[in-house]
């Protein structure tokens, strides 16, 4: 086979490869149908689209060390990554990206339309504990001490604005009628919020306060100085009251949990008119045994179900509970809450709390617009370049345009083959590189013109042109590749897409200008061996 035939074969092989990589395939993805997002099979070119083109969420999280410091960060991050991956797998997002990057965890969920829900799902620690409520009236005993500690720390009613609806001063120390709404807004000088504003809620260890008093209590309980005044082995936790509720519930609990989330093997969401929205759970054999043991010791006691240090509910233990149980979320709560809770309980608790350091949410409509704009720009750019080439170089320009077609197809195929993500800057990079790809052709053609001027034959001029332009072409492509590589290294998401498009274009441009166009010239020369002039 002649060299020319080898070349033609190589070009055809490349085109075949490109056709394979770019051929429209069936993929399942979220599409906008009648105003709702649904999963549907769609036939399209298999180019992966970045978040800015299809919409979605990008979240970067770090370990939150504001409450406790974590000694072994790398290990904690690793375990957190596994938990998050399990959760997202169960959530059912197509092509999620979950990876660790230095000290951060990066999560990208394309096509997700409820960002808050997704972020809560990913970030929630989901630490489940079962704790018995206090039966020793501990809060009454330490109320005075806690108030004194609060005063020491300067947490006073004055700094928070006293509430007009102060609870009766007698409420805690007398077993009297707590509904007596004495407008006693001046508590005794020795008293304080814990002594005067807390009311028993009818069950041991459970108290209520007015919602208006929440800020000062929250502030006090966040202060470790104040909480040192609590009796040993006891903790105070808030209930999961709705924001609109007029009261907030406080629970005094045994610090030791009789069972925790690690013993869970399964959790299911359920909803019925009687129980409301609940999550039923299943424990391991060992966990079930331990649970039965403990609950039989505490029959008729109240057991708080605590999720992330918030008490979800505190039912009475009527009889020993074995391997099955139920967490009540309440009537009127949406099923999605139960589903999400069941999901995180199944996937496991996060070993460390995470905080969000970066979040981007792109709506899908924005992405669709961007694609359309990119395609239009690409079409116009291509048309203009084709026009310029054919006007300026005529027949040779036509050959260059053919090379340009090869270039475009090859660049896109490289992106598809390497599973690169196409972003909006990536489209811009592609359009830009069309203009730059013809640079190699300019170098070669101008050289050919000069050789023809010097009186060389057509065949020789073409050869010399390609030969002498070679070094400049290599240098220009390498310098562009260097800047693209740096951009790839230091850029994030969309900018990285730009760098990738540029790099793919550089490779395709080399192939196109030096190999494909040369082959076309050789083909032409073969048919017109006696050519005296070259249309260039």
């Amino acid at each position: 086979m002649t060299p020319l035939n080898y070349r033609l074969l190589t070009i055809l092989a490349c085109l075949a490869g490109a056709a394979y990589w770019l051929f429209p395939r069936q993929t399942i993805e979220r599409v906008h149908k009648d105003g709702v997002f649904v999963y549907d099979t769609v036939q399209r070119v298999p180019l992966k689209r970045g978040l800015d083109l299809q919409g979605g969420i990008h979240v970067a999280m770090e370990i939150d060390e504001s409450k406790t410091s974590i000694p072994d960060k790398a290990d904690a991050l690793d375990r957190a990554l596994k938990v998050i991956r399990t959760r997202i797998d169960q959530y059912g997002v197509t092509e999620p990206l979950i990876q660790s990057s230095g000290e951060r965890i990066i999560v990208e969920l394309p096509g997700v339309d409820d960002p808050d829900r997704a972020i809560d799902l990913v970030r929630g620690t989901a630490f489940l504990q079962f704790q018995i409520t206090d039966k020793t009236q501990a809060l009454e005993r330490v109320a005075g001490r806690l108030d004194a500690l609060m005063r020491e720390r300067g947490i006073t009613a004055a700094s928070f604005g006293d509430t007009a609806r102060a609870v009766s001063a007698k409420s805690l120390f007398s077993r009297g009628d707590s509904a007596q709404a004495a407008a006693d807004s001046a508590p005794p000088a020795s008293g304080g919020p814990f002594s005067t504003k807390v009311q028993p809620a009818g069950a041991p260890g459970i108290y209520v306060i007015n919602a208006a008093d929440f800020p000062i209590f929250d502030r006090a309980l966040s202060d470790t100085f104040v909480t040192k005044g609590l009796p040993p082995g006891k903790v105070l936790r808030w209930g999961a009251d709705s924001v609109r509720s007029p009261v907030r519930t406080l629970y005094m609990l045994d610090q030791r949990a009789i069972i925790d989330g690690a013993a869970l093997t399964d959790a299911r969401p359920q909803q019925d008119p009687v129980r409301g929205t609940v999550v039923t759970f299943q424990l391991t054999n060992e966990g079930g045994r331990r649970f039965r043991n403990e609950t039989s010791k505490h029959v008729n006691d109240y057991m708080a179900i605590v999720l992330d240090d918030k008490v979800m509910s505190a039912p009475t233990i009527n009889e020993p509970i074995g391997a099955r149980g139920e967490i009540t979320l309440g009537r009127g709560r949406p099923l999605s809450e139960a589903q999400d809770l069941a999901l995180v309980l199944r996937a496991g608790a996060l070993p460390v709390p995470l905080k969000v350091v970066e979040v981007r949410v792109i709506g899908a409509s924005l992405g669709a617009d961007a694609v359309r704009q990119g395609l239009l720009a690409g079409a116009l750019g291509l048309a203009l370049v084709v026009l310029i080439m054919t006007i300026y170089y005529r027949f040779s320009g036509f050959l260059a345009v053919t090379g340009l077609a090869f270039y475009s197809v090859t660049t896109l195929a490289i992106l598809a083959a390497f599973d690169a993500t196409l972003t909006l800057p990536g489209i811009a990079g592609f359009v830009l590189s069309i203009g730059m790809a013809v640079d190699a052709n300019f170098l070669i053609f101008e050289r050919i013109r000069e050789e023809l001027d010097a009186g060389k034959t057509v065949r020789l001029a073409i050869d010399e042109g390609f030969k002498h332009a070679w070094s400049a072409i290599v240098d220009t492509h390498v310098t562009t590749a260097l800047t693209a590589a740096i951009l790839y290294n230091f850029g994030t998401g969309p900018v990285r897409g730009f760098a990738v498009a540029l790099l793919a274009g550089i490779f395709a441009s080399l192939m196109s200008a030096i190999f494909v166009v040369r082959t076309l010239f050789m083909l032409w020369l073969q048919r017109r061996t006696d050519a005296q002039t070259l249309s260039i």
Partner: protein
Amino acid sequence: MLRILYKTSYDFIRRWRMAAAFVALFTVPAALLIPFTGLNYSIEFTGGTVVQVQFRDSTDVGRVRAALTAAEVPGAEPVSFGTPRDFVIRAQELDAVQQQELGAETVAEQIREALNTAFGAGSYEVIRTEAIGPRVGEELRRQAIIAMLIAFGLTLVYLAWRFEWRFAVAAVLATVHDIVAAFALIKYMNLEISLFVVGAILTVVGYSMNDKVVVFDRVRENLHLTKREGLYALLNRSVNETLPRTVMTGTTTLACLLALLIFGGEVIRPFAWILTFGIIVGTFSSIYIAAPLLLWIERKWPRADMVVRLAGGLDSAAPAAPAASAKSSAATPAAR
């Protein structure tokens, strides 16, 4: 054949003073302004929150601002964005950024709460949210600067290897000029500097470098072909010879950028502006700055085999030739 700039012989190096004046005129005001009024950074570099919303019914900026102030969202500024239903709310002040240290999403949540309270939860749709915590912003800033420095360093090394250090330095300095001019443009147009814009600047570096490489490649070739041609004349000739390619590549790239400017949309537009300007300035510096720089470097630190080519001052091809004409004659031997 259709040929532009065919067999030209302009004396570009002669005009170096004019070129320097242009450069100074364009960049010095920006250099003076920037320390006082700063640059317009996007939240990617400062941290902060940007929320783009679309209301069901038209509303005006004043109402949105009132809603945000009522909820005491720190430093949130709404701006109309295209139609009377679209707004972009930006919280980039220091207190907003510092609040995000606890969680990047907090300010965005506050903004949504504020809009819910004032307008009702179903009356608008969030099109886009971006929230960057302060430390991430700082890191991105540092990385962008490092990236630019490495870009210059690597190309310097590569060019020094392919040509030699004098050529490399001349090319890199001319490119530095292009970057400075690009930043001046960013200052004058008050473009928002985002990561993508930094990408644009790095692309200008790449393109500008390419241009210098093509000219210097021709210089190197001419140095091989002639033995005693004066460097001044040789450099001029090389620039003239590569002029068609320089202009044509600039034209096709500008054509593609025009397409991006027309159709590209808001995100791409700053990128396209910077590149358009960068290409024009890059072409300018390839013609009027790179060659005089190389000549100056060679005169100060001449290479052994260049000495024979270096007679005459920076302003004339040869001492005896008349200085008046802008189009000097072609190569004259340096030896007198």
